[in-house]
């Protein structure tokens, strides 16, 4: 493992992908780096290629052009067990939370340990004390200790996404990829979930790459914003510098920004 200033945690270079039967590529020559401990938002309208980018990053689809490196490893060159082992170190957060409905919150967090625990323990649900203590600590960190034995499908959306964050923490991965983590949540839960995610990333030096489609959430959450439009990177800037011109180049129309003086950007 490289320390600060070493290889970037995530490196994407010249990434391109075209779905079979489509003429327009979903991703074109996408390149950016994410440094270790950095929190980056991929911002773009729906159809800009955010989901394709995430699927390429996890090798759920194999990209035909370019390269992807996570924690110094090229996932595209790994197969079978090696790929499983590499994925173990990447935490994933999904739009639909993807908890196992009939398991409790705590059991869902323990799922983050499956890559490390022997098979017989998983089959018999006999986790070691240290794993259970870890799971409880992770649930406590996201403020859900009191819901530990609640079934996942009985929790609210915001609570489910916080359980998913706890699952990633239990997985102890240094890199977390989040694909539209708050787009099925109400605004209050969305802010709450993103604050939690940012908080744990800061505390544990976790690298986070998250796609978002709301500018306000992205600028509040991220250190840096990578803007995608039609599969191309059109913006790569610190969140604090994000301005109306950046907005227009991502969304193709002028938008209203909190930190932009009125008059400079007018809503369509």
């Amino acid at each position, binding site marked *: 493992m490289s320390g600060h200033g070493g290889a970037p945690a995530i490196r994407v270079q010249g990434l391109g992908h075209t779905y079979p039967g489509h003429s327009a590529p979903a991703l074109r020559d996408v390149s950016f780096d994410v440094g270790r401990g950095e929190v980056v938002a991929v911002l773009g309208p729906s159809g800009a290629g955010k989901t394709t980018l995430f699927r390429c990053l996890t090798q759920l689809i194999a990209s035909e052009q370019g390269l992807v490196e996570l924690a110094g490893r090229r996932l595209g060159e790994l197969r079978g067990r090696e790929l499983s082992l590499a994925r173990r170190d990447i935490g994933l957060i999904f739009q639909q939370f*993807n908890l196992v409905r009939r398991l409790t919150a705590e059991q869902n967090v323990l799922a983050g340990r499956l890559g490390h625990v022997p098979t017989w323990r998983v089959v018999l649900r006999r986790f070691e004390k240290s794993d259970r203590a870890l799971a409880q600590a992770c649930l406590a960190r996201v403020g859900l200790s009191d819901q530990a034995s609640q079934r996942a499908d009985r929790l609210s959306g915001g609570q489910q996404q916080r359980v998913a964050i706890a699952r990633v923490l239990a997985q102890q991965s240094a890199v977390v990829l989040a694909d539209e983590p708050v787009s099925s949540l109400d605004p209050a839960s969305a802010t709450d979930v993103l604050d939690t995610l940012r908080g744990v990333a800061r505390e544990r030096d976790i690298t986070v790459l998250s796609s978002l489609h709301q500018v306000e959430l992205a600028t509040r959450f991220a250190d840096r914003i990578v803007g995608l439009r039609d599969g191309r990177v059109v913006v790569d800037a610190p969140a604090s510098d994000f301005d109306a011109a950046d907005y227009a180049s991502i969304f193709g129309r002028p938008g209203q920004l909190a930190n932009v003086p009125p008059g400079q950007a007018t809503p369509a």
Partner: protein
Amino acid sequence: MDADAGARAPRPRWARIGGRIALVATLLGVYAVSIRLADVDLGALLEGLPRMADWAGRAVPPETAQLGLLLLRAAETAAIALVGTTLAAVLALVTCTLAARNLTPSAFVRLPTRWLLNTLRGIDSFVFAILFVAAVGLGPFAGVLGVALHTWGSMAKLFAETIEDVPAGPLDAVRLTGASRTKLVSYALVPDVLPGLSSIGLYMLEFNVRTSTVLGIVGAGGIGLELKNSLDLLNFPRLLTVIIIILLMVTAVDQLSSRLRRRLG
């Protein structure tokens, strides 16, 4: 993505009406041929009715002389269904993971598995029982094997469909934590599908108790043997007792099973 599917031009009015007329004509033709092939003869039914009424009259009161033996045969029937269904459930659990699209290791495993299951499902328990009577001899064991093989096919197919209905997201999420297939199935899949699979198992058991009542006709054990004997000897009071026992047993199992299944749902 599906823009071209939705944009298909509507067919003209005459084509739709013509299509409907052709459909109705075809259906009428199929029924006409089927009624002919099935030898449907209302006259024969009318002629037979008095004979059946006469049998019904002679059947009352039901005979209770061999009640102990008949109850034993009924228990044998239930046992065939229980053992056969359980055996089928074990085989189905193993094979359904190969047949389910979202869990199979590869299409080269899934398709042959599907073919096998469809074949098993396509051959009735009764037909299997005839074969097994020839192979392992008369008696309930032939019935168990017949029920088990047919049910294996049906059950594994239903199991696989239940598994295919499980949302992909949570499975992907767990798979991507680096969990192996065994871990994935036991930790993320089983808790999700267990109620559904249990419900299918109970339903198949219920179904097999009904199936097993006739297996005795081909010598594969159970109360069907007594049904056939009584009919062959024209012993209608005994036949009535057999029918009452079958009805009571089937009703009791149906009730029990549907109550259990409601609790699972």
